[in-house]
């Protein structure tokens, strides 16, 4: 299978990757070719949200999104929001609320919450909860994660 070249912008940086199979999920490209650690494999089925990234600002499941469909787009992972030394306000809200146990699932709640609150600055708890529908957190840290997102929504409103 001949490799093809795909260009995409990841966390603000233009990237070019050589991939032999156009159906390769974006998640593997982010993990292997670009060495990112934020989006994670949870199910490979689009059922849990661990692999969530923003594609042109909209949350998608990178485990079921082919590289061929990602090329030419702008991808943001949770690394693209902030750093330990300079966390994004939404990341700071998760830190402030101590909103996780293992933290593996975090890309889903954080990025779905981020996208929704960007578009709905005065979002209520119920609206945020609804926006996260279907995402999973197996440590069941839902209450704190929602508290973190409500905090972020209030701080940015």
């Amino acid at each position, binding site marked *: 299978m001949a490799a093809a070249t795909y260009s995409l912008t990841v966390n603000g940086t233009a990237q070019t990757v050589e991939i032999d*199979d156009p159906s*390769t999920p974006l998640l593997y490209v982010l993990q292997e070719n670009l060495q990112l650690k934020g989006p994670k494999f949870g199910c490979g089925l689009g059922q*849990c949200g661990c692999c969530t990234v923003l594609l042109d600002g909209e949350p998608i499941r990178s485990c079921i999104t082919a590289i061929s469909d990602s090329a030419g787009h702008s991808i943001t992972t949770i*690394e693209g929001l902030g750093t330990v030394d300079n966390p994004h306000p939404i*990341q700071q809200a998760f830190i402030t609320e101590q909103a996780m*146990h293992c933290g593996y699932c975090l890309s889903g709640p954080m990025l779905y919450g981020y996208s929704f609150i960007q578009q709905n600055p005065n979002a209520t708890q119920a609206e945020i909860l609804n926006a996260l529908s*279907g995402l999973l957190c197996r440590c069941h840290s839902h209450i704190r994660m929602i508290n973190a997102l409500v905090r972020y929504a209030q701080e940015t409103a």
Partner: protein
Amino acid sequence: MRLKGFNFFNPSSMTSDAVEAAKKAGASRRDFLRSAGILMVGFSVAAKAPRLMAQSSPIAPAGTVDATQVDSWIAVGADESITCYTGKVELGQGMRTVQYQLIAEELSVPMSRINLIMGVTGICPDQGTTSGSQSTITEFSPGGLRQALDTARDALMQLASEELDTPVSGLSVTNGVVWVTADPTQSISYGNLVYGRRFNLTLNANTVPKDPATWTVLGTSVPRVDIPAKATGSFTYVQNVRVPGMLHGKVVRPQTIGAHVVSIDSSSLNGMPGNPQVVQVNDFVGVVADSEWHAINAVGALNVTWSTGATLPAQSSLFSYIQSQPSADSYTVNSGDVPTQLAAAAKTFKAQYLHPYQMHGSIGSSCAVADVRGGTGKNASIKIWSSTQGPYPQRDSVSTLLGIPNSNVQVFFTDGSGCYGLNGADNVCYDAALMSQAVGAPVRVQYTRRDEMAGYGENYGPPYIVNLQAGVDKNGTIITWDYEGWSVTLGNRPSATAPNNIPTGVLAGYGPAPGATPTTTPTAPGATFSNGSNVVCNYVTGLGGNGTTGGTGTVASQRALSHTITSPFFTGPLRSPARLQNTFANESFMDEMAAALKVDPIQFRLKHLSDPRLIAVLNGVAQAANWDTRPSPKPGNASTGVVTGRGVSCVLYEGNNGYCAMVAEVSVDQGTGIITVTNMYASQDSGPISNPNGMRNQMEGGAMQGMSRALYEQVSWNNRAGIVTSEDWVSYPVYQFGYFLPQMTTVLINNPEQPSKGSGECTITLVGSAIANAVFDATGVRMRQIPFTPATFMAAKGAGQTSSLATPVHDRV
């Protein structure tokens, strides 16, 4: 970090003998570990010896670290760094942060100076597994990290006393600097006291830990040290580990449960990208390729012929199947008078409670990286990156699995997805190790969702059948309690002698997993009462074989008989193993009796309790929930439409490991059968609280996970097809975002005078019974089988499961 006014040692003025002595004294911890404490100058005699060497980083030696030695736990660097080594690892429960707090507290050093190495074999002490809500207990108990820290602190103070010519009683410590209380200009730092030497001390059994009443770091809500990196995506989970030359492996599991390999057509991979290679070890089959996606595609193409699998019981008849099998039987208590007391009772009650197989279902599928060099035998070696709960047990069992001496195996614990017990972390390590050994390169394996869930990934939590009987006198006081339970077992945590405790060990040819060994007569209760599985309810005296009692209740007549049969599926500890299932039964039954006797369920519990701490958590949660004292069901609720109710439950977890009480409030839609938990209140006493926010986090997560297990979760299978059908999050549903979010109130009872106890498994133990009791309060319908799905509620309501078993089966009033 040198202090003003202190004369520092000048190495150029040393004699050659002194230089040699200093080199020995300052030798790296690696040398200490190798020399097992033979070479070194003792701390006290070396108090005034020259200081020279900086602490060098420890490098793995062979063998096991001597946990009786302070140097196995602590190294004080000349740069004032404090490096500690621990066997208790981070599973998302906050053990990393609690250990930072403990180190900061006992040594009076800032947390920012601490570096904690967790779960690396050959470097960290062997503390078995991080499990069973035992980690805080272990580290705070004799032989654990706290005693090592306190021994070190005493030595540092003694050394400072000599340096500053002041008795220890005249010294103070702040931020790792010892100073003369009467003259703060006289001071010396730990780094300058130790200067990279080692302690050469045995843990002192008589050292005195800091009084919890004086804690300034422990006992406070120190934020988790790992959360900033996890929140910003920079944290390296085991799923993120990449090593040079690493290949990606995927497993190919038996087509049906119990099937064996007949043949493999490797030619089916010809021409596929990524240079896929097939690895077979008996019934273990894997494919290794240059990338994860190539490996996945190769697995899809590989043609393996499997034999017919094992015969599975039908899921619909699981409970009768379990009761029909030969079993291993044991008594936990047996006062001998239960039949006569039941016969003499004014009223007797009887009910059966059922619990399904459930799974850990870690959100991140299990992953490991293994790097085997040299094939097999004494010249081979292996490095493993794993999120295992037991680095040393994993080292030893992988040693057996691969035929490589355990001295040549090193496990590097690396955080993973939350495990909640024996998830697939050890199993996937076997998969990676077998494939790495076969291909001669480092191999990373991360399971697919189906690999994780469908029978060959993790060891499930076992199903339970609990039959309870009790008798009350004419005053409504319980006079006898009878428990008879059935559960299943197949495998367990892996060990050096039992790689076959987990699926890949069996596939690789280490024989069938051990199940139950049937007994002819039940084993007798232990001499002293032990209630590790919470078989025995809260309300009996807890009678040991020697006649002493150790329970939390007042009822003297008691029997608990447990039967265990061999499971068709792998089983192992799942958060609150057996405790959850037994407490669901015991605490539901208590509620049923209270209702039948028309007594408030909390008052009925209090009437039969003797332990003041259990009474206190029960009263604490009643107050938090603004409990409405009255019998269940709630008067005035309609038999149609949406109704609300509340239920209570309590437990002394494992008979000695944390007191907890919970109130759940529910609304029930009697038209659809949907049960919604609206509020949960939990009150807990785990002794001195190390980190209040961390404890609340554990209580909340446990309660919410318990709600998921009570309402949604059960492993399903198709015995005709021979497969587990719970293979993803659709076929194994759990609570998810978007569902009604309950409010959660936590009440912490700090008990600084008591020993530390666990906090991670208390609330989850209570949720099933608290919800069932609340549903009964709301509707008069009694839920006796988990999960409480809409269909099971409607069936129970339709069957009139409202009073037939809640009323006395026998009434002599």
